[in-house]
């Protein structure tokens, strides 16, 4: 199973890379790679739970945490591809906020989760955010470049955040507390905006 996943990832990378480079040769539209990469970063509703997810993974120890480095970007890419064929579901903004609150809360209580639950959160979040970013593409956007940019930034942020959080957790007793406090603040943001969502819908 593990082998197959890795092979699949390698095949995907192999299949995508030359297309991107080819586009560079034909016309300089690699810019869409970067618009895809920047798009999630402009939305705190995505960046905050990404970092919370990485910290949550770090609390599970490196042996389990490393799986989200593989799973999350794949889910993100799958969500992006799905957005090409399916409309964004109506519950998407609400689900996004719930994910902010849930990941934040899980970090705040330093929850020990089975690997399956951790990966399920990563998959749901990846699919949702992938679809949300994908829906932001316009007719002229180069889809392959945009989606690879989005996947690349998802991989980059999750990897850096997970690695940093794991490294940070080694050492003094205050360090897990600091991360838990951070998770608690993320949860607070999620809960308050969820409350706002009851009054009027929040754009996702």
């Amino acid at each position, binding site marked *: 199973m593990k082998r197959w996943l890795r092979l699949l990832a390698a095949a995907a990378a192999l299949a995508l890379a030359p297309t991107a*480079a080819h586009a560079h040769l034909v016309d*300089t539209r690699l810019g869409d790679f970067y618009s895809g990469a920047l798009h999630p970063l402009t939305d705190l509703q995505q960046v905050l739970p990404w970092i919370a997810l990485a910290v949550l993974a770090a609390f599970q120890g490196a042996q389990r945490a490393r799986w989200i480095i593989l799973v999350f970007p794949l889910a993100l890419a799958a969500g992006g591809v799905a957005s090409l064929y399916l409309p964004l579901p109506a519950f998407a903004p609400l689900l996004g906020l719930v994910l902010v609150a849930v990941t934040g809360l899980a970090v705040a209580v330093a929850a020990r989760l089975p690997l399956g639950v951790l990966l399920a959160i990563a998959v749901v979040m990846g699919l949702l955010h992938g679809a949300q970013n994908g829906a932001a593409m316009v007719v002229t956007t180069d889809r392959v470049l945009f989606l690879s940019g989005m996947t690349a930034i998802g991989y980059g942020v999750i990897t850096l955040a997970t690695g940093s959080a794991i490294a940070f957790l080694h050492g003094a007793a205050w360090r897990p507390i600091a991360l838990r406090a951070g998770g608690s603040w993320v949860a607070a943001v999620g809960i308050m905006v969820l409350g706002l969502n009851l009054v009027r819908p929040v754009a996702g």
Partner: protein
Amino acid sequence: MSGTANATATGSPGARRRFAALGSLAAALLCLVVALLVPASQARAHEATMAVITLREIAPGRFIGQWTMPPVDMTLQPLFPPHCKWEPPELVCGARGLTGQLSFMGLGSKQSVATIRVVPHEGPMEVYTVSAAKPTVMAARDPGTDLAMWRDLAETYVNLGIDHILRGIDHLLFVLGLIWLVKGGWKLVKTITAFTVGHSISLAAATFGLVGVPERPLNAAIALSIVFVGVEIVKLQRGEVGLTARYPWTVAFAFGLLHGLGFATALTALGIPQATLPIALLFFNVGVEIGQLSFVAVVLALLWAHRQAQALLPRWGAAMPAYVIGSVASYWFLLRI
């Protein structure tokens, strides 16, 4: 997908592999030498999707504008300072002349660079380049001592340099290969510096027209240089001491020369007037360095994060990145010849 790299890398006897690596290095250098022999005038053809509009001053403050290189995206429109009246093809600016902010409407992914050339009644032509990264420029009459003008020039060309290297996936792939080969520490600093020195020299030489490069063989040679790095990584992982492992900065310098010629095509395509060329070149190079160092830093940070998370490739897959780099680059090589 072509299997050139796989073939050269996996062809089992050690001697053949060494030959293959040397062969691709030699071929890359041969392309370079051939490229250097071709006169500068052939360097004109380029791939950039840029648009150029030329404004000729027919009376003081009155210009006639014409696309000398029409935009791909027809919605692209120049934007002039508020005191100017633009009724294509006529631009009337009055006594103040064409000074102030110049910009383009509709710059984006399709059209990333657009240039306004101003041919005044007297004096030399002025060129203003607007890119997606630097959406406005200030037009001034006398760029010689104007500090704002200098800052403007710096902003434009530093951004252009960053833009160019970050979009140049082949350059980035080569740098990635170097990092993979040299691992880290002082050796990496020296190698990257050598690469930088190399491409700065050839970028300058090509920009001033000392050497001319036809695009296709140059791009093919660049692709080949990446194949070479991929082969070297595989050799290193098998415990053989390759050329790059032995003389990392010599190899990096040599390939730097090659890649610098590649950077130059982006700059020469803009048609910068001779007077501002040295300074534009300097800022462009600074931008390229900023982009390159950022890339190196991100790659090192990611490698560090992978080690922290113990998310490393298993032994059976350790050579995979090298094969990927090699295969992709061979594919480009075949596309480009």
